[in-house]
């Protein structure tokens, strides 16, 4: 019997290397800020950044919801038209209340928006889970439905908010608290709540487990139907919150409101590091992803060397590069 003597042991990497995976989107964000600054120093001005981040709030808020849906193994293509629909019915509701209740109709309308959002989410969730229809198709269907409803309700035109409510409502988008724009605060709050639910509550665990492996979840006594439906309901609530912030910005709902938001939302989630296959979601990455998207658009406006025809191409290239940074920082 020949024994071989052992030399240096193999090294096993430490468990706790601050995970670069999580850092990916933030690195991409930092790179973008740097590039932006080089291209146009105005880019880093407080006004500009605060504008951009404020804008990204809608997508960020909706994308927090989408992080739940995607991490539970679903997908929601209807968020953009759901946003338009909720915006529309909320404005109609507020306008209807305004003569009698004055500015009180604003909070009432907000509550109404939330209820509608929850209901829309429930519909999506039920079709996907109870109807057992591929989420892509189910929500593509409801996307058409919500969009058509708002077109119908607006008679193909716009639904503007009552002038009497305009000024009272304005601060929800344009106001600041301690210098920070309110939409930023709201989106941070939504993200923080989202993070607590996803990382610190039972529901979050179930959501991730359902997305990671449905059978395992089921065998662990988790109701896949319930978990996934709740994710869609959360998504509905987030869309409603975004809609609430959105109304004062544009003052109206139109049949084109929220068009293509679904793509931005999904992109934000994926850039943020959540995979479309489901499993663990990354709320803060999602928020970073939403900001990245808005920054890219902003950069396009601030820089002058891209032909207007090519903007979409450059955006596409940047998104792919951001994903590569994301990936190779792993």
């Amino acid at each position, binding site marked *: 019997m020949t*024994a071989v003597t052992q030399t240096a042991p193999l090294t096993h990497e430490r468990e706790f290397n601050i995970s670069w995976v999580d850092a990916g989107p933030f690195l991409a964000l930092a790179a973008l800020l740097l590039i932006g600054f080089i291209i146009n120093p105005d880019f880093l001005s407080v006004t500009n950044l605060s504008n951009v981040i404020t804008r990204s709030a809608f997508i960020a808020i909706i994308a927090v919801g989408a992080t739940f849906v995607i991490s539970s193994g679903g997908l929601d293509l209807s968020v953009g038209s759901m946003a338009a629909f909720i915006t529309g019915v909320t404005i109609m509701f507020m306008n209807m209340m305004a003569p009698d209740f004055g500015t009180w109709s604003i909070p009432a309308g907000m509550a109404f928006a939330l209820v509608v959002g929850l209901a829309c989410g429930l519909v999506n969730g039920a079709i996907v889970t109870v109807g057992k229809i591929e989420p892509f198709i189910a929500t593509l269907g409801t996307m058409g439905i919500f969009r058509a409803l708002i077109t119908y309700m607006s008679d193909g035109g716009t639904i503007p908010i009552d002038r009497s409510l305009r000024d009272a409502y304005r601060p929800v988008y344009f106001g600041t608290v301690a210098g920070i724009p309110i939409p930023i605060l709201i989106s941070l709050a939504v993200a923080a709540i989202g993070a607590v639910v996803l990382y610190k509550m039972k529901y979050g665990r179930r959501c991730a487990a359902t997305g990671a492996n449905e059978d395992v979840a089921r065998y662990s006594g988790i109701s896949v139907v319930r978990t996934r439906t709740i994710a869609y309901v959360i998504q509905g609530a987030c869309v409603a919150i975004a809609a609430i912030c959105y109304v004062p910005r544009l003052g109206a709902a139109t049949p084109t409101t929220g068009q293509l938001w679904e793509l931005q939302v999904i992109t934000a989630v994926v850039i943020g590091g959540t995979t479309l296959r489901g*499993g663990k979601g990354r709320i803060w990455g999602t928020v970073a992803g939403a900001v990245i998207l808005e920054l890219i658009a902003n950069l396009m406006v601030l820089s002058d060397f891209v032909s207007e025809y090519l903007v979409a191409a450059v955006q596409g290239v940047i998104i792919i590069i951001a994903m590569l940074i994301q990936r190779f920082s792993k």
Partner: protein
Amino acid sequence: MPGDERRISANVVLRAEGLSKQFGPVTVLSDVTLDIVAGEIHAIIGENGAGKSTLMRLLAGYADPTAGDLFLDGAPVRFANPHQAQDAGIVLVHQEILLADGLTVAENLFLGRELTRNGIVDDRTMKRIAAAKLAELGCRISPNALVRDIALADRQLVQIARALLDARRLVIFDEPTAVLTDEEVHRLLDIILLLKEQGIAVLYISHRLEEVQRLADKVTVLRDGRMVGTYPGQTLSQMEMAHLMVGRELAALYPPKKAVPSGEPILAVRNATVAGFAEDVSFSVRRGEILGFAGMIGAGRTELFEGLIGLRHAVGEVELNGKPIAIRSQQQAIAAGIGYLTEDRKGKGLLLQERLAPNLTLSALRTFHPGLYLRSRREAAALDEAVSSYDIRLKSLKVRAGQLSGGNQQKLLLAKVLLTDPSVVIIDEPTRGIDIANKAQIYAFIQDLVAEGRACIVISSEMQELIGICDRIIVMRRGRVSGEVSGDEMTENNIAFLATSDAAAEPAAWQPERSLQGGR
């Protein structure tokens, strides 16, 4: 002889009466009656496909019987789902690993029953309990590790720990030891004895009959979905058990060894390193030789060979038939005539949703179907041939691979790899979860394939089987070759010494395998 204890004693936790299960036209279980008594270890044995797992699933609420009844403490009961069985204190450790890859060990342990404080999950406590439970089982992985990154054995231990958290009335172990090393097995058996002392009933399924003999108070034998009988544990010899299972006399488990081959080496490996798993490994194997690789789980054997055949990044020199070759992908390995049979047959070996024929030819597409098109007739013939020459037992040729029992899946996998006509066959854990009759068959197949002039490398965590079939055994420890034994030196003691001596000296530093990012 069946039904020693037909009366319902006060101690009977769960009674199954006349259970049957059909899948469509196929009957897999018929008329099984069983009393499970508190504080008793009750073993269920039977060939692959006898219906053991199916029976366990019925008992634990994962499936509904087609006929028959369950009685919990004497009262009829029906579990609509596993959750209800769990609430009744009945838990099942599945034969397959059922864990969520993307979640951590602790998260998996407590999945579906997280501990909370004021609605917030109490991760600290859960991690503490998880670490403690795992330590009890001798598993030292971190509760923070992702299940995706831990070895198969550790996954099995996590799964066992998960069941033990909830063990109150009855714990069902469905082949818990198939992927464990001897040391881990010992620890598990101790724990099972502890459960028994606590008055918990245990149902225990294993193809390792020595375990059954050590543990079981009662043994129930299933054959072809029917009860052969229930017997007092200690009175049965292993040979008798095997006989009852198979229903005929069994030849010897290990085929007689042929003369030690002395041909030229087919495959020679020098200084192979797979970063993080195996370092500086050299060996060679001759035509007609069966070379064993022994070691503890995590010794890096699987990763070494995955590296050699291009599934992972590896450095080193490989010579095939005296000529140096570079293998950068599994395709090249197959083309060069090196076949590898994975240890993870469900995850990496077979397309479970696919029928048998496509599975059979998947590795050999290029050679089996020359040209662009599939030869479906040839494929069907090959399946017929594989079914008969590997004795794959199935009820229809149209079943999906996932519906075969474990032993038959393994035979299909063997057929699949051999269809590429390799000159060197590497078999990782050839008999994991395989019944004794099938084992003997698989050993005979291995013997046959070297007799045809191939070389075979067998990686196994069962020392007995290596000793039984190999001409020579290389032992690995922590990624390095720690020694080599052949002839009379091939004893459990020698191998165990080489596999563990160093590790035993410094257990704290010893971390089981973990997939490192460096790999791929």
